């Protein structure tokens, strides 16, 4: 994102909207620090930030690699070129009743790197994928744009180009047999100590016939108490996949 120095009057309206603290005003001109800017697009949306001079514009280079990586992982309004899916990840639980992506006896794990608020670099994201790969988790969700940036999925390694980038968030997604849950959670707790950001952790599973959540006891024994709010797929999709 770019601020036209001729047009800007230094009113400072745009500054507080930037989730990456990339905008500063000095000598009555606002500037964007390109290293900090994650290309989320917020400051350039005229319906959000009412810049009185229309001084904030998107540069064309934002759609060219490597800058485009920031754009596609940070701006929810930009469609991923690789997957044609808007947003950062996949349909995960949202269509599980139709896709059968996560079946009985399995759990889907999503690691939302950089969420909430802090953002993440691919160097940190790679620390997590490498730790998972060492545990034998090398099949990452095919439809997730992050998987397309891997140079060596067997070792959880990203391309050099990706590793130069910071993004608002990127989601590591995979499915494992429920028996692997304990080891995977232990791995994630360990690698969490090594990263310079946060991740929000998600677990997707089928519900039992009576509506109860099958992994609750297992999670309790791992010392994890899920939040009281969750996202529930009501099973209204068709054709319904009862797998």
């Amino acid at each position: 994102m770019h601020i036209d120095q001729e047009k800007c009057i230094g009113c400072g309206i745009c500054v507080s909207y930037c989730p990456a603290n990339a905008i500063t005003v000095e000598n009555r001109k606002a500037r964007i620090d390109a290293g900090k800017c994650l290309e989320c697009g917020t400051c350039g949306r005229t319906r959000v930030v009412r810049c009185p001079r229309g001084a904030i514009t998107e540069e064309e280079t934002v759609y060219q690699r490597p800058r485009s990586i920031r754009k596609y992982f940070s701006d929810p309004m930009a469609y991923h070129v690789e997957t044609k899916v808007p947003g950062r990840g996949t349909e995960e639980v949202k269509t599980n009743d139709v896709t059968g992506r996560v079946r009985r006896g399995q759990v889907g794990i999503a690691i939302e790197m950089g969420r909430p608020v802090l953002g993440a670099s691919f160097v940190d994201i790679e620390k997590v994928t490498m730790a998972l790969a060492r545990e034998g988790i090398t099949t990452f969700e095919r439809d997730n744009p992050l998987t397309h940036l891997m140079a060596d999925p067997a070792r959880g390694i990203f391309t050099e180009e990706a590793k130069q980038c910071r993004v608002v968030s990127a989601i590591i997604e995979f499915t494992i047999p429920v028996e692997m849950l304990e080891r995977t959670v232990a791995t994630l707790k360990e690698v969490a100590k090594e990263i310079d950001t946060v991740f929000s952790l998600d677990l997707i599973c089928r519900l039992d016939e009576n509506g109860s959540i099958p992994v609750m006891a297992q999670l309790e024994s791992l010392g994890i108490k899920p939040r009281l709010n969750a996202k529930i797929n009501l099973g209204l999709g068709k054709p319904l996949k009862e797998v």
Partner: protein
Amino acid sequence: MTHSLHRTGTPESLREDYVVLVTPAVGINNQGSQDKLREILDFIFDLGPTNIGSYETGTIFSGATIEEIKAKLSETPRVRVCFSSKEKVKHLIQFIKERDYGLSVTVSGLIDEVQGMARELGIKPHSVNLSLGVHGKVEDLPSPEVLEFITMCGHGMISASLVKKLIEGVKEGRYTPEKAAEEMARPCVCGIFNTERAAKLLAKYVQK
């Protein structure tokens, strides 16, 4: 993509906060789903959502209209809507169930409340996405008070400095809680930021 999952706050406050997503599965039942979604959107508008928007248009708080949201539905159309009332969510689910659209529906909210609602409607939920919390450098996160607002936009578009500035604005009497909540809602493009919940949370900052 799990942007409605990690909303933080007390159970009392989350009891009045629901996000409904209607999502056709890409490559399976997205063909011809746009008209179904337009019918659903009409019903939602009659019902009166707290917030609604789309990746294509932004939200009602940034100036999008129902006509615009309907007209700009993409090839993989989705409905994202936020309610503060369980009764409204129930009406919407009942409508979608009766019409038998065959599109996937997820509701984010307190597990007991959503499951109770499904039972009342004779629906057997299929799967769940649980939040196992935030890990890593949690000491770098803003305060829990600020996070309650920020996590209502799961995409991370609402900055901590905007939230702090608006809280200050309410304290100083420059904004009403409602006005500050609407201002906070604008960067969230898909419309799941709950302005009514935010206004209630902001009300505690009004100087007596």
